[in-house]
Each structure stands twice: as C-alpha cells, then as structure tokens.
C-alpha cells in the first residue's frame, strides 16, 4: 500500500494524459466518412472504459485479498475502487452517447453495446445497494467482496463479449473489427495507448484519495 503515497506515478499519469490532450487534437487521423474529425473522440472516450476496467480489476484483487486476510482496509480499498470505476462508467456512457448522436443519429439507439453497458452499470449499482443494506461490518465485507468477484467477469462478458456476437453499430462488433486497419492506423496508436495508461493511472489516483479519506473516517468511527 506504500505505492499510493508516492508521487512519481501521479506525475507520469499527468504527463501522459497531457500529451494525449495535445497530440490527440493535432496529430494525423485517417479521413473516414461519417466520422470525420470525431474520430479523435477515440482518444477520450475509450480511455474512460480502460480506466474503469483497471479500477474494477484492482477492486476484485482487493476483494480477494480481503477474503484471504480479513483486513478491513482491503475491503475499504475495494469499495472505493468500485466507486471511482462507476464515475468512469458514467463518463464512458455519456461520451459514447454524445458520439453516437452525431454518428449513429441517436443518443440511445438500443444498440446491443449500449444496452449491455447499461445492464452492467445496474450490476454495479446493485453492488452499492447490497453493500449499504448490511449493517454488520464483517458480513458486509464478505458478502460484498464475493458479489464483486462475480460481478467483474459478468461485466466483462456483458460489455466485451455479448455485443460482439450480434450485430452492433459499435466498432468491434458483429464482424467489424475494432482497432483494425479500418478505424485505427499506427499513427493513432501512438496517442491511444499512452491515453489508456494515463487515464488508468488517474483512475487509480482518484481511488487512492477516496480510500485514504475512507480510512481516516473509519479510524475516527472505531475510536469513538
């Protein structure tokens, strides 16, 4: 846990995201019909999901560590990771809706990708409700950890796997490749991958701040 008190990776995150903000608007992008300049959204919409996947995955790791050791801190870290991930979930959904309005013609066209993303969001809402409905600390920690471990793979299947098996407007579904030759050339990767790492680290940073606040609150509550 010493890692979260260090500064170097926070600066790394800032530098990477700052670079993608500038390079994402200036560097060359392929000229594609319908998309036009909105293809630059790729640098800002997709990293939201990457940040979400990262913090949700870290949350699962902490849940497993909590079940192994029974230490309260791991449970708190896991919860704050989920809370941060849900913020990025909403950002990803809203930016996706914005982009869809100008390329698919509708904010919400009941596309399989959109629908299953919404279901996955409800899955994590259920996690928060479940957690807040249990008063006893150990029981709450255990039940919510187990729920979290099961929710993660279901979320991945809902967002990444199921939409690919049907026809969807979203790239990477229904036989049209995401990150294929059509919609991503190598000059875009130079910006996209740093954006993934940068935003994921920013997600971890926000989660770590929330965790530290939660830890102080927790200590205060146990002393009183």
């Amino acid at each position: 846990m010493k890692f979260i008190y260090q500064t170097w990776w926070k600066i790394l995150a800032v530098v990477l995201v700052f670079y993608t903000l500038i390079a994402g608007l200036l560097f060359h992008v392929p000229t594609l019909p319908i998309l036009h300049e909105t293809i630059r959204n790729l640098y800002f919409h997709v990293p939201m999901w990457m940040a979400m996947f990262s913090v949700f995955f870290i949350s699962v790791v902490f849940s497993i560590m909590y079940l192994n050791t029974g230490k309260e801190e791991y449970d708190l870290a896991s919860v704050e990771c989920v809370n941060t991930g849900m913020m990025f979930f909403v950002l990803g959904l809203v930016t996706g809706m914005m982009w869809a309005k100008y390329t698919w013609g509708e904010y919400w066209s009941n596309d399989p990708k959109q629908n299953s993303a919404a279901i996955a969001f409800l899955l994590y809402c259920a996690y928060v409700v479940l957690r807040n409905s249990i008063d006893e600390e150990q029981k709450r920690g255990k039940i919510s950890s187990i729920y979290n471990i099961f929710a993660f793979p279901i979320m991945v299947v809902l967002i990444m796997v199921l939409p690919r098996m049907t026809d969807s407007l979203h790239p990477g579904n229904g036989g049209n490749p995401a990150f294929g030759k059509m919609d991503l050339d190598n000059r875009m990767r130079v910006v996209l991958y740093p954006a993934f790492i940068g935003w994921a680290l920013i997600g971890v940073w926000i989660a770590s701040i929330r965790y530290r606040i939660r830890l102080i609150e927790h200590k205060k509550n146990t002393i009183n």
Partner: protein
Amino acid sequence: MKKLSSIILFLLIFTTVFAQQSAGVEMADTLRSSGKIYVVITTIAIVFIGIIIYLFSIDRRLKKLEK
C-alpha cells in the same frame, strides 16, 4: 446501340458517384490550418492543469491529515 449507350451511361454515373465518395470526406482542415485549434488546445490544457493542481492540493491536505 441503345443498350450499349445506356451501359456506358450507367458506367459514367457510377464513376461520378465513386469520385464523390473518395473526395467527399470533409475534415476540419481549415480550422486547424488557420491556427485556431491552438485556442481549443490551450483551453483544454488550462482546464486539465487546473484539475490536476486541485487533485495535488487534495493529496497534500490528506497527507497533513494523516499525520
């Protein structure tokens, strides 16, 4: 003769459609070449720097609180 001319006509129609498709993708080249995109980038950069300074200050306050 009529058949042949209509076939040629259709072929020509196809070429015009095709030409439109390949040259018709509009990008915001004028905005970028006239240099105004830098205004947008500066705005975004200022917003981002502001948020980051805010995050760092929260981090610092937390460090004090933890001690």
